[in-house]
């Protein structure tokens, strides 16, 4: 029964972005992965490949001379022959491929080393270029004392070294340094401002000290160093290759590499801009959203030239910064462009990573590429969930404390990731090499493959993001303290990674299949793609791994319901706000009946299955004696019983879900998870009752088929369901009255 609530407004306090783990580390990870992938690509293009080509020629002659089983026309023979020849080819080329990967890894290590060296030298260069000298207390004793006081107030572990350039008239400050040794440099103009307008001086200092407190310096200067190293260690060698060597295909590569350079630079700048907003907000802690911080940002230098020019700037526009201080909500959301950067890195890096790991382990990896595929998916899942997942958690918190902030749809995020992934893949190494050739013109082929893939990718991403949202919304309501939030968020993001690894792996597998199918022409591509996705889905239905994933995804959400509702205290959820005020209380009690409804509906489903299935099974056993049954009869009978169970679970899910509503997907899958094992038991016991056996493997396969099939059927419509499920009458988490 739904409780009645007073329709109170949202909390006027500003949400505290520092209450949640920052996504900067993951964004920096994205940059590093993008740079490494692009570097790998560039060195693969420019390194001499004469030795590799010779090896391939030699290996080809060995393959042709192989006395393996000669194909006689049967599929089995052809497969055996192909396998033997592939083994000979792989063994022959393994050493050369590993050597090549070794050279490329050396190049990567070189670029990484260059980045480290630049990072170490940057503070020295920055100090020299700025003309900074140490500020001794006798220079300006009041200023030194004030800086030390502000540093202590900012909660820094150690005070920064104070530098200044007395002859620089601008009223500005900057922080730099490396490995915890930070330096705060002031201009002469700012020091003069201390005596004229100390509030302005303090505001500028608070912003700079906030950078130190937020841990920005190392990340920022590493970001800068990584970019310079990429430019000098990868882009420059490519340019030299273009100028001096006769690589006929270098010109074809130019646009891809130019695109990579732009992409890396834009990711770098987005990392840098994000840190400024966080520093502004922390600097405004003391005097609030309408204080001096907001005022002086209005006086700060404006990057002229419109939005295009601002894309290249390392600071957000003053108007944007003022808006963020006044309303910190923008730090709780993920934009289409942020999601696009994530997708782009994934699309770019996955093929390169898979290829590198695959070639590096050639001759050792007997998994047929599963290890390289899985490792690439694992690494990129960490980044995707780190950036997108943490943003979704923050956004979910915002919607819980202010229902008006709930996004109209999560589709822009899914579309952003997809658009980025498609673009990244087009720029990647694998897209530049058309090994198989195609009946289609290159552009038409790209358009068809990318379109088909984009549809599948968008639906998959939307499902994943919605799951993360549901997990966040569920667990945030059970996390009234900063400590419980940290635990819940860590567990939620780890669970999301568990789901994300097979998802990313599956998406790129689908892509490979679609690309393969594209060799047959436009219509065949779509047809084969649909067939491949359909058959692939059927193949994975019987795997226990899928059952495990469904259990993880559902179990994690259900587990939150087992945690008691937090007590009403003064401290509850106060961590989520910058300003002090009362604690919050969870005023929504709509989920108390969720378990009961799911269990009842599932039991009804099992009963319906029993009533329908028993007469059918009895008739079949009576009409078709054991001796008269062919293998096809038995398989058809088995498939029909499983299909019946899956369909009834779909009905159960629809009955539980009703017209949608909150946690519709969770309720649907929960119903399937309860009904599935029940129906499997009925099926197996009926088989036993009519004289069949009960093999453990058969039982496991049956349970997997029924549970997986039912859960997937229940989830099938979820990405298309309405989001949000309807406006609430007010925030779920509301200030205590």
């Amino acid at each position, binding site marked *: 029964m739904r409780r009645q609530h007073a329709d109170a407004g949202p909390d006027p306090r500003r949400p505290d972005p520092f209450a949640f783990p920052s996504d900067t580390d993951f964004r920096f990870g994205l940059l590093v992965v993008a740079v490494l992938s692009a570097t790998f690509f560039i060195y693969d293009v420019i390194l001499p490949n004469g030795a590799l080509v010779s090896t391939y020629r030699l290996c080809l002659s060995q393959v042709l001379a192989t006395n393996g089983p000669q194909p006689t026309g049967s599929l089995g023979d052809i497969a055996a022959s192909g396998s033997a020849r592939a083994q000979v080819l792989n063994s022959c080329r393994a050493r050369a491929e590993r050597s090549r990967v070794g050279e490329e890894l050396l190049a990567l290590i070189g670029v990484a080393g260059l980045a480290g060296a630049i990072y170490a030298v940057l503070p020295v260069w920055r100090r020299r270029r700025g*003309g900074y*000298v140490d500020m001794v207390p*006798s*220079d*300006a004793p009041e200023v030194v004392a004030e800086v030390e006081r502000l540093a202590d107030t900012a909660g820094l572990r150690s005070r920064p070294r104070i530098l200044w*350039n*007395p*002859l*620089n*008239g*601008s*009223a*500005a*400050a*900057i*922080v*730099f340094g490396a490995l915890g040794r930070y330096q705060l440099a002031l*201009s*002469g*103009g*700012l*020091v*003069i*401002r201390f*005596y*004229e307008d100390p509030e*302005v001086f303090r505001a*500028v200092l608070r*912003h*700079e000290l906030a*950078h130190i407190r937020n841990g*920005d*310096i190392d990340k*920022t*200067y590493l970001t*800068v160093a990584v970019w310079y190293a990429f430019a000098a260690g990868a882009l420059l060698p490519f340019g030299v290759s273009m100028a001096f060597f006769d690589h006929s295909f270098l010109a074809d590569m130019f646009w891809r590499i130019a695109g990579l350079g732009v992409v890396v630079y834009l990711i770098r700048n987005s990392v*840098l801009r994000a*840190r*400024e907003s966080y*520093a502004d907000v922390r600097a405004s802690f003391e005097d609030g959203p309408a204080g001096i911080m907001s005022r*002086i940002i209005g*006086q*700060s*230098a404006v*990057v002229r030239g419109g939005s295009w020019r601002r894309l290249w*700037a*390392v*600071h957000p526009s003053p108007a944007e910064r003022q808006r963020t201080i006044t309303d910190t909500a923008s730090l709780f959301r993920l934009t289409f462009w942020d999601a696009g950067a994530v997708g782009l890195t994934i699309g770019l890096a996955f093929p390169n990573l898979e290829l590198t790991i695959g070639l590096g382990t050639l001759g050792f990896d007997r998994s047929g590429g599963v290890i390289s595929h899985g490792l690439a998916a694992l690494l990129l899942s960490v980044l995707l969930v780190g950036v997108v997942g943490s943003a979704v958690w923050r956004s979910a918190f915002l919607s819980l404390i202010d229902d008006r902030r709930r996004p109209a749809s999560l589709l822009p995020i899914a579309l952003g990731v997809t658009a980025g992934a498609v673009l990244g893949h087009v720029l990647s190494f694998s897209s530049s090499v058309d090994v198989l050739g195609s009946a289609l013109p290159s552009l038409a082929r790209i358009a068809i493959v990318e379109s088909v893939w984009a549809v599948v990718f968008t639906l998959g991403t939307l499902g994943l993001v919605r799951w993360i949202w549901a997990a966040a919304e569920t667990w945030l309501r059970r996390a009234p303290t900063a400590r419980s939030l940290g635990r819940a968020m860590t567990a939620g993001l780890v669970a999301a990674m568990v789901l994300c690894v097979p998802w990313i792996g599956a998406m790129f597998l689908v892509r490979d299949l679609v690309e393969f199918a594209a060799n047959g022409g436009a219509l065949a591509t779509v047809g084969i793609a649909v067939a491949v996705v359909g058959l692939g889905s059927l193949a994975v239905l019987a795997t226990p791994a899928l059952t495990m994933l469904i259990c993880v995804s559902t179990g994690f959400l259900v587990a939150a319901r087992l945690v008691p509702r937090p007590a009403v205290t003064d401290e509850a959820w106060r961590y989520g706000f910058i300003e002090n005020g009362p604690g919050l209380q969870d005023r929504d009690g709509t989920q108390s009946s969720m378990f009961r409804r799911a269990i009842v509906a599932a039991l009804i489903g099992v009963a319906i299955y029993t009533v329908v299935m028993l007469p059918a099974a009895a008739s079949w056993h009576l009409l078709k004696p054991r001796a008269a049954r062919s293998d096809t009869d038995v398989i058809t009978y088995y498939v029909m019983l499983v299909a019946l169970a899956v369909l009834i679970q779909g009905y159960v899910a629809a009955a539980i879900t009703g017209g949608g509503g909150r946690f519709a997907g969770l309720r649907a899958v929960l119903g399937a998870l309860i009904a599935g094992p029940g129906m499997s038991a009925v099926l197996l016991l009926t088989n036993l009752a009519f004289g069949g056996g009960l093999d453990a493997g058969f039982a496991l396969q049956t349970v997997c088929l029924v549970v997986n099939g039912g859960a997937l059927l229940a989830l099938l419509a979820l990405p298309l369901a309405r989001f949000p499920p309807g406006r609430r009458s007010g925030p779920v988490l509301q200030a205590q009255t």
Partner: protein
Amino acid sequence: MADDTLHDLIRDLSRSLIVSVAPEEVRLFGPLSAAYYRDPAAATRARKERDEVLGFGVEAAAVIATPIVLSVVTDVVRHLTQRLVADAGEHGAQVAERGVQALLQRARSPEAVPSVPGLTEAQLREVRERAYEKARELRLSDARSALLADALVGSLSASSTA
């Protein structure tokens, strides 16, 4: 020794001028003048505004007056010395230098050096014009350049008429 004395006198005169031209810099005159003498060219070099990583500041760069005043006074003193040398003939250099030092000392403390020959009207006009142009060249605003030139002439003429 003579150079050190001249240097000190220029500093002292500049400090007294800063009080009227840029009073907000008086407290920082010591380190600002030290920075000027470390690299006089840097004091007058134009700076390009950059979108610095992790940097933050308000409004466009202002001009710090202290190094400009030091530069203007130094230039004027050098010019005066050259003019007096030209007028004094043999042994003129030493005489001229002593004369200028005496002028500057009187500007600092009129009681200390009561009888020093003063600058003529024409010379004072020339000093004003030169100081104003030099200050403008170093990007000091028109009003402050005029203020500096007037204050400098005032100091030197006060010493002349004492």
